Each structure stands twice: as C-alpha cells, then as structure tokens.
C-alpha cells in the first residue's frame, strides 16, 4: 500500500513585484455580445451571464449590443456621469495629498473604480438605501452630497456629521441613501437584506443595495446574506466589487478563480450578472435591470463588477510590495473615465478641449470645498467636536453611569 504525503496548495498571483504584469489569462469578452434577458427571466436561463461579461462600450467608444439600449439616456446624462467620475477622482487626489500633509489621519481612494458607484447610484430612487463599503463614495458624489461635508468627515472637524467618532471615509447619510459605514467587513451585506425585508414587510416600494469587495465575500456575512435574500426573495441588489485585490491578497485567495464571484449566486437561485466595472454604461444598464427586478418584487440580483484597484488599498498601504508597480496600467478593461470620455467624443458630444476644461472646473470646485472644510478645521487644528459629545448617542438617553463618567472627565 502506497502512502501519499498530503500537502496544501497556497494560492498566489501569477506575478509579483519585479516581474512584468501579465493579464494574458484574463479573458476580455467582446462588447455587446451578452444577451439582455427580461427582468423576470429565471436564474437557470441566465447562467451564462454569471460567467461571461456584460460590456457596452467597445474599443472605439461605441455603445453596442442589447445592454446599450437605454433610449432615455441623454447626452447630458452621459456628460453628468463623466463629471461625477472626474469629481470623485479629483476628490481622491486632494484627500490623498491632504493625508500626506497629515491633515486627516487616513484616506482610501477609488482610483479605477469610479464607474461602479457613480453609475450604480443613477439607477436608484430617493428613499432607496445603499449599504456601502468604504470604497463607494461615488454613491454620495452622484447623489449630490456636498463634498465639503465629506471632507469635514475625513478631517473629523466640527462640521463632521458623525462628530469625529469614525475613521475618515466612514460616511453616513440617511437622506442620501448611504448607510453608516462600519470597519467590520461584510456586516452590512446581511443588514441590507434585512432592510429590504423591512421594506417588503411594510409594503413599501423602496429597495436596498448591498456592497462588498472580492476579499470580503469570504466572510460568513456574505453567505448569510445570500441565504436570507434568496429565502425571502428580498428586494435587494447584491453588489460584489471585484477589484482583484484585498489589501495584499489577490482575488484568487477568496477563490475568485473557482468559477466567478457572480457564479456564487446560482447556488442560491439568485440571478447573477457579471459586468465590466470600468464601463459606465454597462454598470448603469445592469444596475437598472437589477433595480427594476427588485422593484417589480421579483427578488434579489447578484452583480459582480469586474474592475481593478489602481491605487494602494489605503494611505497606509504600499502596493509595490506585493504586485508590479505598473500593473494598473496594463489592466485589460482600461480606465473608466477615459472610456466614457472616448464614448462621448465618438458621439460628438464631447471634445478633448472640453474635457480639459471640465477637469479644471471640477478641481477648482473641489479645492474651494476643501478651503471651506479646512476653515472649520483639520484633525490637528481648528474646531473639532466637543469631548462632551463622546458620551452622546451611546444610548438614546444617557444612562447614569455615562453621566458620571462624563462629569468625572470634566466635560
């Protein structure tokens, strides 16, 4: 009898720092090829959509295929989408610089992922609720949330709506359909399902959108959310943003290579779509399809947005320690801003000159907001929330032991 010495596989990305980026294994499907089924199609008939990729914009910037069919989408709306992405990118750039100047303690960029949250938000209605991660600020930008208020949160100054209690970028806005962000990964995914169940129990017409990254799909909360969403057919859109990286670990460690992340939906009977996350129009079309499904009481949809985290994980991270430093430039799905720009130019609705002008306008707008935010304060200077406020909102009413502690502290 022979014995085999057992061993484990330790998954690792194909290339590491020093080597040339290699996306030759990454299949880039042809734009316009995926069918656009009816929103009441059964999950079984949609299987291919979880393994292929819904793409609208082709290499020349033309919007092609059935998912491009959005007759109500005007050039103004397309230009607005471009502006939202430019705004998010400019905001990121200014906050990154501010962090390097030690004005906030921390920041997280969206570089390369701007289309996902900016486009998705346009498929929602007032009253719908996102349960975002820390990398969907485009939901706020595209809903018109004031950039100055976002900066006040990042600085934790006296203009911060959450009173300096949360890390930078952990925004909260009920009015703008943006649920309070938590540092604990995955927790919001099942909460989104519960919120959607609440809406359905109340006989309301509002829907929820859940957000999670590729890495966090490994958390138990992801599984719980899928079971509950499927069991109760909750009106929720379950978004996975697959940006290939979870800090230093590549998406294969969370088993991205085992089928696709979208394919997880089929184990639960949840229709699943895989979309080019750097294609603004594709994300918008898919978001409209899934939100219509939810509003029609047809239940949840799982969407895998395939994109690339072009920047470091956070300002505390140096990606050149674990991946080729020029890998982002080789990403096969390109840059979401440049692709929508090319599309608008191809339609005769934009020009290189107007783009440069728009970038300048957006940057001026962000800089002006930054001056206003910094006039209130930054982490280390200016006005910050009173320490007495630390004791507020732990409970609806302050219990005696907290009142004693506040008095003891002298606040």
């Amino acid at each position, binding site marked *: 009898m022979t014995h085999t010495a057992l061993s484990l596989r330790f998954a690792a990305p194909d290339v590491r720092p020093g080597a040339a980026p290699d996306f030759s294994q990454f299949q880039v499907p042809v734009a316009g090829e995926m069918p656009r089924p009816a929103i009441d199609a059964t999950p079984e008939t949609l299987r291919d959509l979880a393994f292929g990729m819904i793409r609208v914009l082709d290499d020349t910037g033309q919007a092609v295929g059935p998912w491009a069919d959005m007759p109500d989408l005007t050039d103004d709306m397309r230009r607005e989408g471009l502006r939202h992405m430019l705004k998010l990118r400019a905001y990121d750039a200014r906050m990154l610089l501010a962090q390097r100047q030690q004005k906030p303690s921390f920041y997280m960029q969206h570089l390369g992922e701007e289309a996902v949250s900016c486009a998705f938000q346009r498929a929602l209605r007032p009253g719908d609720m996102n349960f975002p991660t820390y990398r969907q600020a485009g939901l706020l930008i595209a809903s018109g949330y004031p950039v100055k208020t976002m900066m006040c949160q990042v600085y934790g100054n006296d203009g911060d709506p959450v009173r300096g209690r949360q890390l930078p970028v952990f925004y909260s806005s009920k009015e703008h359909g943006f649920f309070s962000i938590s540092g604990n990964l995955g927790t919001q995914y*099942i909460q989104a399902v519960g919120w959607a*169940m609440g809406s359905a129990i109340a006989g309301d017409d509002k829907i929820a959108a859940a957000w999670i990254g590729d890495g966090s799909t490994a958390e138990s909360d992801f599984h719980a959310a899928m079971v509950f969403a499927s069991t109760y057919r909750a009106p929720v859109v379950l978004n996975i943003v697959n940006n290939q990286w979870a800090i230093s670990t590549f998406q294969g460690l969370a088993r991205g290579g085992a089928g696709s992340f979208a394919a997880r939906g089929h184990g639960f009977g949840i229709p699943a779509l895989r979309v080019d996350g750097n294609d603004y129009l594709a994300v918008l079309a898919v978001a409209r399809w899934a939100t219509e499904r939810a509003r029609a009481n047809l239940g949840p949809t799982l969407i895998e947005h395939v994109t690339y985290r072009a920047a470091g994980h956070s300002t505390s991270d140096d990606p050149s320690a674990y991946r080729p430093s020029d890998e982002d430039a080789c990403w096969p799905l390109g840059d979401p801003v440049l692709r929508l720009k090319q599309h608008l130019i191809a339609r005769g609705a934009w020009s290189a000159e107007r783009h440069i002008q728009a970038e300048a306008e957006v940057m001026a707008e962000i800089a002006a907001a930054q001056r206003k935010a910094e006039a209130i304060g930054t982490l280390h200077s200016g006005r910050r929330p009173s320490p007495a406020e630390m004791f507020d909102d732990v409970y609806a009413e302050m219990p005696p*032991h907290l009142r004693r502690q506040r008095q003891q502290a002298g606040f």
Partner: protein
Amino acid sequence: MPCMTMIEAIRDALDVALAQDPEVTVFGQDVGFFGGVFRCTAGLQKKHGETRCFDTPISELGIVGAAIGMASYGLKPVVEIQFADYMYPAYDQIVSEAARLRFRSAGEFTCPMVIRMPTGGGIFGAQTHSQSPEALFTHVAGLKTVVPSNPHDAKGLLLAAIADPDPVIFLEPKRIYNGPFDGHHNRPVTAWRSHPLGEVPEGPYTLPLGQAVIRREGAALTVLAYGTMVHVALAAVQEGGIDAEVIDLRTLLPLDLETITTSVRKTRRCVVLHEATLTSGFGAELAALVQAECFWHLEAPVERVTGWDTPYPHTNEWDYFPGPARVAAACHRVLEVK
C-alpha cells in the same frame, strides 16, 4: 389576575406587542409555524400572520444582521437565538453593529431591537445549553442587558425592552421557564401558579429597565442576584435563618446602583451571586462598584458565589451550579468577619 408560566408570560408580551405596534416583527429559528422549541412564540404566526412572525434559516448572524437592517429601516424586530450558547456567530453583529450604530452615525441610524436568548443552567444542558454569557454583553457600550426572574417581570420587562429605543439583550433563564427553581434539584419541581409572581396582568404594562427590586428585606447582609439565582438566594437565606436583604437586579445594564448601595450601606456586608463563571464575570463589576461606593460602610470583603471557571459540565451539574448550600456558606463567612 391570570396565572402564567414564564413561557406564557413571554408569549403574552409578544402577542401584546404584535397587536399594539405594527412595526414589531418576531423571527428566529423554529419561531414561526412551530412556535419555538420552548413554545414562547406558539400561535403567534397563526394569529398575526407570516410577515409578523416567521421562521429563519439556521444562521445567528443572519438573524441578528437582518434584524439590524430591519431596525434601521424603521421596524422593531424581536428576534430569538435558540440558546444563548449559540449567540457567538452573531457576536460581531451584536457588538460591532447593533451596539454602535447610533453612536457611529451620531443618531442618524438607530437599532431599536430585542434579542431574546434562553440562558443559564440547571437542566443538564451541559456545555452548549447552559451558558450564562451576560458579561459578554454588559462589557459592550451601547447594549442594555435584562434578566427576568419570574413571569410577572418577564412580561413587563420584555414589553419595556421592545418599546426601548436601544438594542436590548433579553436573557431568559430557561430553568425557571415552567416554575421557580431554588437549586434544590432533589425536590419536586414547583409550578409558577403557586407563586405570587406567577400572576401576570392582562394586556400591556411595562416595568422600567434599570430598576432593581428588593425581594426580601433584611438587615445583616445584602445578596445581589438575578435570574434563577434570585430563587436560590431566597431559599438559602430562609433555610439558613440569615437576615439577608435579597436584591433582584432585573437589569444588569443600566444598573440600579442606588438600590444596591442603599442596601449595602445599611447591611454593611454583601454577597454577589451568578451562575456564570467567576473570572471577569458580571459579579466582578458588582463587587468593584460596591467596594468603591460603600468602602467605609463595609465590615467584610465582598464575596462572590458563581459557577466555577470551567466549561459547564453535564454529569457534575450539581457540583457546578451554585446551589443554596454554597450560597448559605458564603453568607455565613461574610457574617462571621468581625
């Protein structure tokens, strides 16, 4: 006034809450059609409908996580974890999310919910059907923790917990679901109908959270207890002829410190009881508070009578459970200090 078991009182409270508030939803494992493994939700689905009372998949984190989302939508979920021993998969959702949501969003999002959990030992439940994890909740800022000791309180406190705007952990000592238990496991089981606190008013009423009650007045020492241990304490001091003041805390957080300190300053001696393990248990908090608030009044060190620092055993249940003999012995030790 009708007599009820604690199970019936809890069911009645849920029935009242479902009837008077359309935002209340009740769910958990086996809670819906079947009516709960302890019958606490029996008949509620039939009476109030599937959207108000329903079964869930076996996922504690799913139950609590969905309830947090539902509460932030504007409903008032009252969810059940089948045994407190099985709350650990939901602990992240309870601690990181439910407890912190109001604080971290500066009041923009809130979490008015109740998590019911059968707790405690004395039923040969062994390691995973006997735990008393209250200290894991009282250590968490943002949670309220309630432990009733009788049907009358269970209904009033549960209705108060449901009405409360904060997340409440509602621990139900399963050993006293059907009748008071004083720790004398060799004697016949008694029923709630022969106990005055088995009389439960009909319709809605609430008992304030954060308010203890003196179950027995005394002058020689103060015994602090909650849940099943209230009955153990009463039996121990009665049988031992000890002139003890027995306080039923009812709510562990917020704690009724005034009732405690008033009593200890009067009696000058204190014994703290709980089924949970000793080290870093809630008794440590009680002993520290009594020491700090009543230092100049104390005639003896504060004693703690608790479960041993071991996992809850099966066969040796009665060697583990802090019964009346151990309680009486501790009282005598405290009284003997000159």
